[in-house]
């Protein structure tokens, strides 16, 4: 039951002085009254030590204040809170507002002018997963691939950098992340034949430090064929020369995907950045024989050089669009009586992986929804899934419709992040419970045009509770579901766990819910104006704790509503699957902040 607060102290002691550093970020993040990072902390645990709101009094929580974002469509991510200022961001056009917590007046606004031609090349709604803070700057990754650093006090642009080209289908939806003196960002466009990469910039100046491509020659991958390791037959072995090129036919690695639009975590002691890569380009597997490395891969890279220490591919030769970009939650595992520096990752493919984050060894790989059927299990020696040919579109070939594959392409979990409970070592995971039909077909690549090649329909998992989601508690040491709470729709929001023994998440109908970490029992709920796909966050101001979340449906699940699509196979299949959402919600764009009623004072009641 290790406390994780030592992260920041280790960094303060060991970091060298550079032109800029994230020392102020680390100081702010160490105060539970702030929410200084999108993921809560470097480890992506989304855990708050605040406990003024607790299991006994959360039932009395009420709206403290609200604010419109002025924008519609999917609201992902969350605001940041540092001291007396909240930093709010919006979906496209990605406005940024600095708000005084004292009276919710605006300190400054940044309203970028972006070419709207970017919108048609964003596959899955015009979302933005949020801001980052470091060295007195607010970082915004715009949809048009402009990364911009704003003065946190004035909103003035200090530097900007361009990391892609929307004309060839490259855009951004990810949140940039500040780790020490570096800004890490990625790229989107896996449905446009984009070649994925992770990019590092100098926090002080915006100069590019390194680019780590997901596919192609070793020098582009930033791997050392002799030193970069991967799980091979039960142990770690070097990836060898041309580890990516060998797994592609001809030049296809150039349109080979491996995009990096998810979350990033960082271990300051090991100095490693952790992230996953997306689908290998076309959804028609027959057009790209081979394992398609390094798509669908977990990478551990040195923050300073970008060199990969290890890599682990979860879904070789993908046939289902199971992007590997979901968050890597860092924690200390307790397996076989040993304490192991680990990470846990809830992949789109329905398997939850626990790995040694230092060495890259595979420790656990188990289904976190028992209805997952495309693979019977993960072979623990090779790390490869054992594919059931009945659910393999590559086996039946193009123009054949494969039915009842579980999970659907949007996975047992998409980008919506889980949360780690420091008290009991469990994770609370927002999941999807959806299956699909999948028919691949021949496509041609044209730069800037969609490069997909599959028709999908999606629907709730058959012969189950009839709903499209579950909110679960997961044991990352044993690879087991501890409890599971069914939901009508996929749980598309990020979870938050607090030391007050409350777990929060939002639903696609628009409910913000508080549940017990013991059994998922509902303690409180409130219906916000629109579906929730944002991440719940918490902070303290003026001695009072608040919990907040954006309300504004969209994202892949909500794409029908967000983009006005009506054909069931549109939205890469999501429009049909989620058409019932229209019975419960519609578009919106607001921020809701909740707190205990004024009269309750500070909570000194003993937790039950």
């Amino acid at each position: 039951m290790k406390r994780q607060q030592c992260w920041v102290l280790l960094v303060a002691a060991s970091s060298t002085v550079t032109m800029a550093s994230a020392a102020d970020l680390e100081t702010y993040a160490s105060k539970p009254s702030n929410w200084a990072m999108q993921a809560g902390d470097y480890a992506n645990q989304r855990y708050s030590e605040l406990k003024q709101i607790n299991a006994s009094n959360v039932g009395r929580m009420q709206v403290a204040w609200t604010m419109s974002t002025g924008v519609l469509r999917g609201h992902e991510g969350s605001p940041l809170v540092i001291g007396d200022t909240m930093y709010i961001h919006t979906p496209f056009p990605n406005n940024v507002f600095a708000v005084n917590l004292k009276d919710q007046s605006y300190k400054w606004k940044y309203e970028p002018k972006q070419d709207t031609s970017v919108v048609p090349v964003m596959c899955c709604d015009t979302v933005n997963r949020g801001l980052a803070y470091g060295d007195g700057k607010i970082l915004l990754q715009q949809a048009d691939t402009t990364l911009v650093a704003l003065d946190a006090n004035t909103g003035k642009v200090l530097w900007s950098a361009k990391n892609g080209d929307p004309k060839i289908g490259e855009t951004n939806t990810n949140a940039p992340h500040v780790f020490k003196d570096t800004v890490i960002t990625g790229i989107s466009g896996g449905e446009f034949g984009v070649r994925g990469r992770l990019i590092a910039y100098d926090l002080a100046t915006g100069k590019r430090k390194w680019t780590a491509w997901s596919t192609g020659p070793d020098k582009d991958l930033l791997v050392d064929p002799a030193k970069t390791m991967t799980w091979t037959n039960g142990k770690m072995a070097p990836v060898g020369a041309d580890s990516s090129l060998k797994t592609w036919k001809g030049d296809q690695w150039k349109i080979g995907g491996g995009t990096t639009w998810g979350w990033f975590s960082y271990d300051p002691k090991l100095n490693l950045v952790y992230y996953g890569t997306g689908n290998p380009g076309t959804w028609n597997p027959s057009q790209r024989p081979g394992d398609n490395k390094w798509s669908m891969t977990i990478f551990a890279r040195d923050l300073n050089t970008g060199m990969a220490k290890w890599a682990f591919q979860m879904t070789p030769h993908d046939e289902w669009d199971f992007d590997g970009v979901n968050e890597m939650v860092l924690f200390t595992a307790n397996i076989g009586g040993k304490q192991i520096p680990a990470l846990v990752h809830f992949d789109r493919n329905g398997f939850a992986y626990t790995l040694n984050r230092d060495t890259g060894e595979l420790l656990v790989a188990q289904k976190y929804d028992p209805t997952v059927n495309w693979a019977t299990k993960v072979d623990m020696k090779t790390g490869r899934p054992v594919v059931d040919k009945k659910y393999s579109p590559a086996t039946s070939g193009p123009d054949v419709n494969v039915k009842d594959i579980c999970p659907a392409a949007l996975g047992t979990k998409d980008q919506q992040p889980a949360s780690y409970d420091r008290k009991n070592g469990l994770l609370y995971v927002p999941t999807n419970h959806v299956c699909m039909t999948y028919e691949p077909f021949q496509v041609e690549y044209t730069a800037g045009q969609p490069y997909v090649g599959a028709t999908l329909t999606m629907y709730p998992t058959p012969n189950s509770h009839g709903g499209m989601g579950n909110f679960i508690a997961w044991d990352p040491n044993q690879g087991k579901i501890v409890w599971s709470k069914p939901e009508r729709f996929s749980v598309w929001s990020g979870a938050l766990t607090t030391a007050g023994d409350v777990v929060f998440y939002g639903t696609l109908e628009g409910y913000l819910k508080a549940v017990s970490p013991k059994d998922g029992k509902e303690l409180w709920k409130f219906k916000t104006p629109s579906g929730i796909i944002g991440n719940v966050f918490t902070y303290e101001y003026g001695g009072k704790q608040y919990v907040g979340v954006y309300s504004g449906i969209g994202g892949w699940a909500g794409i029908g509503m967000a983009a006005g699509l009506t054909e069931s196979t549109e939205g890469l299949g999501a429009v049909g699957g989620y058409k019932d959402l229209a019975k419960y919600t519609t578009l919106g764009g607001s921020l809701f902040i909740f707190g205990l009623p004024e009269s309750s004072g500070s909570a000194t009641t003993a937790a039950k």
Partner: protein
Amino acid sequence: MSSAKVRMATVAIGLLALSIAAVCTSASDAPAGGDLYQVKEGNKVDPKTLNGWKTWRALACERCHGDQQQGLVGPSLLESLKTLSKDDFHTTIMNGRPDKGMPPFNGSAMVNQNWEGLYAYLKGRSDGKIKPGHLYPMD
């Protein structure tokens, strides 16, 4: 294919193209002389037209023209194909209409190979003879 169905298909095509006396008896897989497309049960078509539909699907034309060719930001092809000649269709798809936002498709191997089948497919849609949605081979 039963002779009754052959007769029905013949009548349908005959109504459409008055000058064509298409008498299909047993040869069901090759288009009869002069037939632009062959269709059975609304969604089973000859190989050339099928490849035309596959080209429509591969190039994601529905993004502008709608998944039922009904028009979105681009015009309804159900309407356009009533009057657009095959030659004009060829010119349009190869060069695009840059001022209206349609890119050229002369760089696409599939379009170069199958543009005639694509014309046949769209004409069949415009004629109301081919159903929207997924198409299948005739046998």
